[in-house]
């Protein structure tokens, strides 16, 4: 969003932005290679790597068995030997199969003996696509608690491309949470030149003075929609898109809340023990003197994501939830 946009260029979807980042990084650096279920001949469950097998060959686009723990372990080994693996989880829900490899091996290697693990795990996450409890999860909270990892979660095509490139170039294991709901729903014209979005930098997607809504992923768009509605009621909402979950950009978070004195933490992951809880604690510790109201969280209830369409709609946060919470804070 900060780079100049070349006129007349074609708009790309969030999904295409991810695909472009992979393609450009594989062309730029021959150490970069892909692993995942059905990513080769089939082109990936969401067609992100369509054509990659033909372009880069079977040594750089590896179809794997349904064995996340095994192929994440293999990727860790390759990374330690100097390659730059990018692993695709077909759905973020399956990442728990590789939990041990990610949190015990990838996250701790550098701590234990200084060995870098420059790998990326792409995890298509989130609901709103009627995928049911095993294809809609937001499992970032489990890893948020694990030292040694970086976690990013872009909300726009620009950030999706820039953060994936930054993740691939980063010497640490990076979990890249891409939101399935956004894949084909949002588009933007991207800069033609090479760019990255630095890991660890949040962005104020909408400036406002009354209430800070701090969020990430698909919820950014919900927050922007609610902010638009609330503007009609003269409630001026600031939307902070975290973009990176680890390391958190505390400076931007604190700066926003010090200005507005009121905070709503919004996410699609379960409420209990989520990222919102951590940020609420940070605000209480670091920004207590500037608070002029309770810190509110908006998140789904602590249940699996329902398969039934009306239940899923009930489960997911809605713009009206943000509007109601903001009104409550504005009146407080």
């Amino acid at each position, binding site marked *: 969003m900060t780079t100049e946009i070349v006129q007349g260029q074609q708009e790309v979807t969030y999904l295409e932005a991810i695909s472009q980042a992979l393609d450009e990084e594989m062309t730029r650096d021959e150490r970069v290679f892909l692993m995942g279920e059905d990513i080769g001949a089939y082109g990936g469950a969401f067609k992100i790597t369509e054509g990659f097998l033909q372009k880069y060959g079977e040594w750089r686009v590896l179809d794997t068995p349904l064995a996340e723990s095994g192929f994440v372990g293999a990727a860790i080994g390759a990374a330690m030997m100097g390659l730059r693996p990018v692993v695709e989880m077909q759905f973020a829900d399956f990442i728990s199969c590789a939990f041990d490899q990610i949190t015990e091996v990838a996250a701790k290697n550098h701590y234990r003996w200084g060995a870098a693990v420059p790998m990326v795990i792409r995890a298509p996450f989130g609901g709103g696509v009627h995928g049911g409890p095993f294809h809609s999860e937001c499992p970032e909270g489990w890893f948020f608690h694990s030292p040694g990892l970086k976690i990013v979660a872009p909300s726009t095509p620009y950030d999706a491309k820039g953060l994936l490139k930054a993740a691939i170039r980063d010497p640490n294991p990076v979990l890249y949470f891409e939101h399935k709901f956004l894949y084909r729903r949002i588009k933007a014209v991207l800069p033609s030149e090479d760019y990255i979005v630095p890991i660890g930098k949040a962005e104020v997607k909408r400036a406002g003075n009354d209430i800070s809504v701090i969020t990430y992923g698909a919820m950014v768009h919900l927050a922007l929609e609610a902010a638009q509605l609330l503007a009609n009621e003269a409630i001026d909402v600031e939307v902070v898109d975290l973009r990176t979950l680890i390391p958190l950009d505390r400076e931007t978070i604190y700066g926003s809340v010090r200005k507005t*004195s009121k905070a709503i933490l919004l996410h699609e992951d379960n409420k209990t023990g989520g990222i919102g809880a951590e940020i609420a604690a940070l605000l209480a510790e670091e920004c*207590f*003197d*500037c*608070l*002029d*109201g309770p810190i509110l969280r*908006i998140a789904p*209830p602590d249940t699996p994501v329902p398969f039934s369409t009306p239940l899923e709609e*009930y489960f997911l946060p809605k713009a*009206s*939830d943000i509007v*109601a*919470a903001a*009104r*409550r804070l504005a*009146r*407080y």
Partner: protein
Amino acid sequence: MATDISMPQLGESIAEGTVVKWLVPVGGMIEKDQSLLEVETEKVALEIPSPATGVLTEIVVQAGETVPVGTLLARIASTTPSEAINRVGGVVVRPMEPIPEGEGHHSPAVRQLAKAQGVDLSQVKGTGAGGRVTKKDVQDFIAQRGVQANVTTPDGGKSMGEEILPLTQMRRIIADRMVRSQQTSAHVTTYFEVDFSSIAKFREGRSLTYLPFVVRAVTRAIRDLPVVNSAWGEQGIIVKKDIHIGIATALDDGLLVPVVRHADRKGLVQLAKEVADLAERARSKKLDPEEVQGGTFTITNHGGFGSLFSTPIIYQPQIAILGVGAIQKRTVVINEGIAIRPMGYLSLSFDHRVIDGATADQFLGKVKGYLEQSHWEQIL
């Protein structure tokens, strides 16, 4: 016993509800657990049973209105003792606790702001939930306080016999700096009387005012006691090596302090020229921004209109300012005789955080000494 009916909390993250319909008219009898009204939220619609048996005495929120959770909807006068808490279909409904008014319930932001701005929170009217004083209430109060000071008579009412002079940018800046200076420094003012005879004699036949002589004497005294030419810093007292003397200059609508740079390196004629030039350009608003910056000590010549003493306010971040009073012929005792001499009072306000009275008096004594000496020819 009366029972208040409030908008119940009908689910997590639900902040308000709409009264769809009252099922009992005002004055109507109602049994405990009998449906009293229909309420709708964005997620559910349901009938609310009465928490008590009695007469519906008042409907506060009419059908069709949407109100926050916890808002008083109606009152029931009980005919039998009833529970004070609302029960909805066996579920205890927790109306949002209204925040009690008064001290001890201010948010951290409100307390912080009130402290920083010296606001007595008991004077601020709260517009938040339950009459809570919000941060915005305090901000509005501060803004209002500024306006009121200008537009109201002492009895608080507006008078037709007044006019409001709009605050100019300069007025605001002066106001802000003066108040901040008094909040910052520990002001003390000390006075000395000076015999200007030798200067008066020297001025005969020359077009020189008293001011350049004072500038000259001040720079000499600073060389003797450099700590007067300093600033307060958290890491220590910052003593300035350069001596730049600010000259407070009255304008029609305010005040400017142009600076004579390296005043200690200039002779009387040069000083006189520069002081006159700066004053002239200050009045015609032709000074460059850098000509009013960087002063290390300030002189204010308040005697021009006959004032004898003053208690000048220090120009931050300097630590002292010298006021020069009117020079008048007075009878003074010299040795055992009475003489008539041109006399004037010097007022030195200094920051007691940085220097003590002894240093200030020593400094002012030196200024006096330099003014009363008679070798002016040599420094022309």
